[in-house]
C-alpha cells in the first residue's frame, strides 16, 4: 500500500461528508491533510503506515466531524441570509428612490386616468415594503444574537426555524413590494413613447428583482442546509 493512501483516503472521505458546503469542504480538507501529516511526522515509532493509522484514529470519525461542521455551516449561511435580507431591502429602497427622483427630474407625470389605480398600488407597495423591512431587520437581529452551538440541539433548531419564518415573511413581502413597483412602473411607462429615459425605470426594476431574488435564494439555501444537517444527524 502506498504511504499516502490512508491519509488521502481519509481526507477524501471527510471532504465527501462535507459536500453540503463546497468551500468549507475544500478548506477543511487542506487543514486536516496538514494536521495528519504533521501527526505522522511527530510519530516515528513503527513506520509511516502505522503512524498514519494512529493519526487517523486520533482524529476521529469523519461523519461525527462533518455533523459538527454542518452546524457551523448552517450558522454561517443563516447569518449571511440575515445580512442579505438587510442589503436586499436597502437595495430595493435605493432603486425605488432612484426611480422616483428620475421621474421628478424629468417631470415625468402619470396620466390622469391611472392616478386612482396607482394610489391603491402605492399603498400596497408601502405596506409590503415596511413589512419586509421590519421582518428582515428582526430576522437579522435575531440570528445575529444567537450563539452557534457545538451540536444541532433542539433549541438551536427552533431558533433557526424562527429566523427562517422571519426571512420568509421578509422575502414574501419584498416580492409583493417589487411586484407593486413593477405595476407602478408599467403604469408610469403606459402611453409614453419608447425613449432613453426608460432606461432608469427599467434598470431600477432590474435591481429590485435581483435584490428580492438574492434574498429568496439565501432563504432557500438555509432550508437546504437545515435539511442536510438533519440528514447528517440521522445517519
Amino acid at each position, binding site marked *: 500500500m502506498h504511504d499516502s493512501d490512508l491519509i488521502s483516503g481519509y481526507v477524501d472521505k471527510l471532504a465527501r461528508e462535507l459536500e453540503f458546503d463546497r468551500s468549507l469542504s475544500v478548506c477543511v480538507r487542506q487543514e486536516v491533510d496538514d494536521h495528519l501529516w504533521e501527526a505522522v511526522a511527530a510519530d516515528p515509532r513503527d513506520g509511516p503506515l502505522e503512524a498514519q493509522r494512529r493519526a487517523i484514529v486520533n*482524529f476521529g470519525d469523519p461523519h461525527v466531524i462533518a455533523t459538527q461542521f454542518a452546524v457551523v455551516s448552517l450558522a454561517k449561511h443563516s447569518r449571511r441570509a440575515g445580512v442579505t435580507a438587510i442589503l436586499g431591502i436597502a437595495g430595493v429602497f435605493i432603486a425605488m428612490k432612484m426611480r422616483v427622483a428620475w421621474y421628478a427630474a424629468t417631470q415625468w407625470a402619470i396620466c390622469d386616468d391611472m392616478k386612482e389605480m396607482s394610489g391603491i398600488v402605492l399603498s400596497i407597495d408601502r405596506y409590503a415594503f415596511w413589512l419586509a423591512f421590519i421582518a428582515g431587520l428582526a430576522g437579522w437581529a435575531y440570528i445575529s444574537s444567537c450563539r452557534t452551538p*457545538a451540536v444541532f440541539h433542539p433549541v438551536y433548531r427552533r431558533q433557526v426555524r424562527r429566523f427562517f419564518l422571519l426571512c420568509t415573511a421578509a422575502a414574501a413581502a419584498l416580492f409583493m413590494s417589487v411586484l407593486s413597483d413593477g405595476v407602478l412602473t408599467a403604469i408610469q411607462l403606459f402611453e409614453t413613447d419608447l425613449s432613453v429615459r426608460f432606461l432608469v425605470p427599467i434598470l431600477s426594476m432590474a435591481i429590485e428583482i435581483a435584490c428580492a431574488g438574492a434574498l429568496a435564494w439565501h432563504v432557500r439555501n438555509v432550508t437546504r442546509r437545515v435539511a442536510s444537517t438533519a440528514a447528517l444527524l440521522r445517519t
Partner: protein
Amino acid sequence: MLKGHLDMIVLAALSAGSAHGYAIIEEIRRRSRGAFDLPEGTIYPALHRLEQAGLLASRWVTAESGRRRRVYALTRRGNRALAERRAVWEQFSGAIGDMLGGARPCTTPT
C-alpha cells in the same frame, strides 16, 4: 464535561500566540499535562465556530513542509471573551473548591 468548556480551552491555548490546529492540540495536551486528550478532529469545528463568532482570526501560510497551513490567532474580542470566561471559571471553581474542601457537615449533635 470537557465539551462544554472546549471554547474556553481553545481560547486559552491561543493566548500564548497564534498557532495552527495541530499545535493548538499539542498546547492543550502540554498545559493540561495530558489530562485533556480530545479526539483531534473536534478542535476544527470549534476553531471555525470561534472564528465565525469573531473571537479568532485566521490566515493561510505555507509551512516548512510546503503544505498550506491555516494559522489562528485571538482577536481583541477573543482576548476579552477569554478574560471574561476565566473570571467566571475562577469564581465557579473557587466556589466548588470551598464546597468540597470546606468544613465537613456536622454528624453529631453538640
